């Protein structure tokens, strides 16, 4: 993709949220790749997961070490081929990378929103993304794609706006969180909220951040993204300094790695946003309004679905994807489902994998767009 730059737009039409509150005005930061065609029928919406943002592909500068989070999958000749598709990648509401979120200034108080920022859900994000689609002149997406929480947004799009989505690409996702998933999120939130620097979410006013809480939350999350095998392969029981010290310092490589992950996360992520994102995950349950019957929900859907899961993903295991597949087949919808061998756990949806890439590419190539 080369060097890309984010764009931003200020929206002043209020957005009503599921929680009952309204957000009066907000900014959406987003990136686009490729060109929208004359009929505007080649647009693909890419939705990010918990900790990623609008920077999905390319580099922000020539000095950048790392490209966007889905760079392997977006670009010329890649599965989401920017020679054919116009890709839109927004940063979600409530995030901390530019779109309006808890650390943004609340125009009503001239202070950071902090805990006053309303709880947002996947349904709200879809409504929010609709505003961006309108701005860009896109009436219907050729596809909405994402992994994990991003896949949930793709699913929600197809449910909420059946005539606005032709294909939903749902990777390593789940129809709703399990008790175990919610439990991990609850522990992550507790870690943040019990940090003395949290100050009920008003840490901005105290010129501090709940760094240790956020760090622990990220370390915990990171464990759930990797598989036992991947951790074993990468670290085993390797020691940092070749010997045991019989104290409580960092001794094993895996400890050192998790700490590093936690610390670097604190530098780029906002604790209130982390709380918000985990809540959005917990609340996601599109079948709720049909008394838990997801197939009934899918009967009203017209998008074709592409689902994929990975064998060692235990956060959203293949079994969870199959629940979605079952609901789709029961509803008679078009769906293809692939299960890939990978030892990368939940993170596999972000990782190079020949079969995954060729299947994803093949599916995308079959999506018809006018020239």
């Amino acid at each position, binding site marked *: 993709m080369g060097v890309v730059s984010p764009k931003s737009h200020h929206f002043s039409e209020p957005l009503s949220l599921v929680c009952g509150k309204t957000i009066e005005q907000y900014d959406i930061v987003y990136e686009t790749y490729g060109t929208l065609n004359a009929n505007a029928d080649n647009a693909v919406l890419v939705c990010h997961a918990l900790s990623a943002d609008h920077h999905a592909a390319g580099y922000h500068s020539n000095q950048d070490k790392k490209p966007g989070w889905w760079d392997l999958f977006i670009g010329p000749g890649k599965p989401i081929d920017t020679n054919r598709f116009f890709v839109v990648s927004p940063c979600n509401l409530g995030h901390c990378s530019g779109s309006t979120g808890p650390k943004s200034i609340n125009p009503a108080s001239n202070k950071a929103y902090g805990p006053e920022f309303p709880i947002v859900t996947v349904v709200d994000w879809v409504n929010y993304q609709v505003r961006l689609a309108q701005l860009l002149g896109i009436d219907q997406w050729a596809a909405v794609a994402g992994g994990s929480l991003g896949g949930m947004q793709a699913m929600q799009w197809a449910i909420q706006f059946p005539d606005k989505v032709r294909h939903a690409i749902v990777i390593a996702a789940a129809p709703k969180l399990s008790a175990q998933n919610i439990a991990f999120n609850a522990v992550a939130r507790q870690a943040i909220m019990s940090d003395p620097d949290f100050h009920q979410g008003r840490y901005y006013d105290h010129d501090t951040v709940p760094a240790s809480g956020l760090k622990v939350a990220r370390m915990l999350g990171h464990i759930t993204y990797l598989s036992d095998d991947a951790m074993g392969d990468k670290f085993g029981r390797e020691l940092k300094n070749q010997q045991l010290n019989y104290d409580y310092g960092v001794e094993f490589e895996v400890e050192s790695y998790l700490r590093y992950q936690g610390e670097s996360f604190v530098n780029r992520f906002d604790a209130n946003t982390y709380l918000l994102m985990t809540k959005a995950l917990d609340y996601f349950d599109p079948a709720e309004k049909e008394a838990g019957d997801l197939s009934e929900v899918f009967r009203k859907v017209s998008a074709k679905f592409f689902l994929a899961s990975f064998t060692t993903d235990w956060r959203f295991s293949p079994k969870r994807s199959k629940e979605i597949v079952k609901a789709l087949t029961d509803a008679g919808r078009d*769906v293809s489902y692939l299960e890939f061998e990978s030892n990368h756990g939940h993170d596999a949806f972000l990782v190079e994998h020949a079969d995954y890439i060729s299947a994803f590419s093949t599916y995308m190539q079959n999506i018809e767009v006018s020239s």
Partner: protein
Amino acid sequence: MSELRIELQRICEWIEPGSRVLDLGCGDGSLLEWLQKNRNISGYGVDINPENVLSCLKKKVNIIQADLDAGLTDFEDGSFDYVIMTQALQALQFPHQTLAEMVRVGRKSIVTFPNFGLWKHRVYLAMKGRMPVSKALPAQWYDTQNIHLCTVKDFEQFCKQQSLHIAKRDIVDYEHRSDALMKLWPNLFGEVALYQINGK
């Protein structure tokens, strides 16, 4: 129909237009592709092999990657007009369970398999004293995928035991021709057996 494997052409003749079809062990998806284009059917293929799965995607055939031996629990009772399984019965771990599942999920089931009762196999075993190897069954006993071969008689006996109603039967050779001998002694002269079974 010329582009379609000759055995599949026969099956296509049995399928009502506009049906909902599940193709188990669907291979490269040719049958479903043809039925979609020419019979306006909807449905899904199921296959475990990654190359087959990719080939189905290329053909715009809905494909669900799954192991047939793990059962069809993801499909509701009577949710398909036809459940088809061509040349896969003999490769299954538990063919009787899969057949039961097919009958549960489909209103009609179509099964094809190589007839092990063919005289050539009998002669091979009798004369050479070794497991038959032929053009149609080229693998050796130790590396064959065909772990549950059966004869026409075996299959019909099984259907009787399970109260499965055989609605249609075609006993043919590998070119899918039929002759008087096959009609008279299907278990001795039939090379391929095609059955349509209707639920209990």
